[in-house]
């Protein structure tokens, strides 16, 4: 293998090992590549939102303390992160009259598509470790899912 030059930054970046996340459950722990999962899910999400851009969408989420369902964003515009990050920290979904929904992607793990009545519904999944062993102690552990569907 040939030696990499100092200025071959792209190749150097490919050689770097992504830090893994330690996931705990009871006395057991495992090293999981959450960054890879997040990157793959972000790519899926980008494809979904590109497809939905310009259309009206309904967005909903269920939480233990509150929920919203069928929140309409008309003529969707997507602000895909700032500083042109590869995996954005936050994306903003804009509707008309300055309506907007911000989605922080640091716990993003998957984007699923399910069809009901021939219509695709997109489920954006976030995961913050197991109950009692959260990855981020300041957030609710377990899964949360954001639900998006196109209406026009």
């Amino acid at each position, binding site marked *: 293998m040939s030696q990499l030059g100092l200025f071959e930054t792209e190749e150097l970046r490919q050689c770097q090992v992504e830090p893994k996340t330690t996931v705990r459950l009871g006395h057991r722990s495992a090293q999981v590549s959450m960054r890879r999962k997040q990157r793959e899910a972000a790519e899926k999400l980008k494809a979904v939102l590109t497809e939905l851009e310009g259309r009206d969408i309904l967005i909903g989420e269920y939480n233990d303390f509150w929920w919203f369902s069928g929140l309409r964003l008309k003529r969707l515009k997507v602000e895909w992160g*700032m*500083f042109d990050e*590869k995996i*954005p920290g*936050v994306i903003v979904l804009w509707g008309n009259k300055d309506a907007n929904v*911000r989605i922080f992607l640091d716990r993003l793990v998957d984007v699923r598509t399910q069809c009901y009545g021939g219509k695709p519904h997109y489920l954006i999944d976030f995961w913050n470790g197991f109950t009692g062993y959260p990855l981020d102690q300041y957030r609710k552990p377990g899964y949360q899912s954001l639900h998006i569907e196109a209406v026009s």
Partner: protein
Amino acid sequence: MTPARVNRRDIRLASTEEKEEAYKLIDGLVDLDIPVSVKEHRSGFPAVAVDCGEVHILTDILSLEQWWAKKKKTG
């Protein structure tokens, strides 16, 4: 390995000019291929932690979005 702790400069109550200066600095570092991360701060919305190289700030997402929209308009 224990993650390194950093002291973030809190600019949430700083003037718009001061905030924009910090954002421009980070944008310059990003142009030099230094990775940046924007994460929701544990204190909740609208606080976000922005880390880029040796620059670590705590700011609000609203001013950051306004600056980004202005930057995109002016080019």
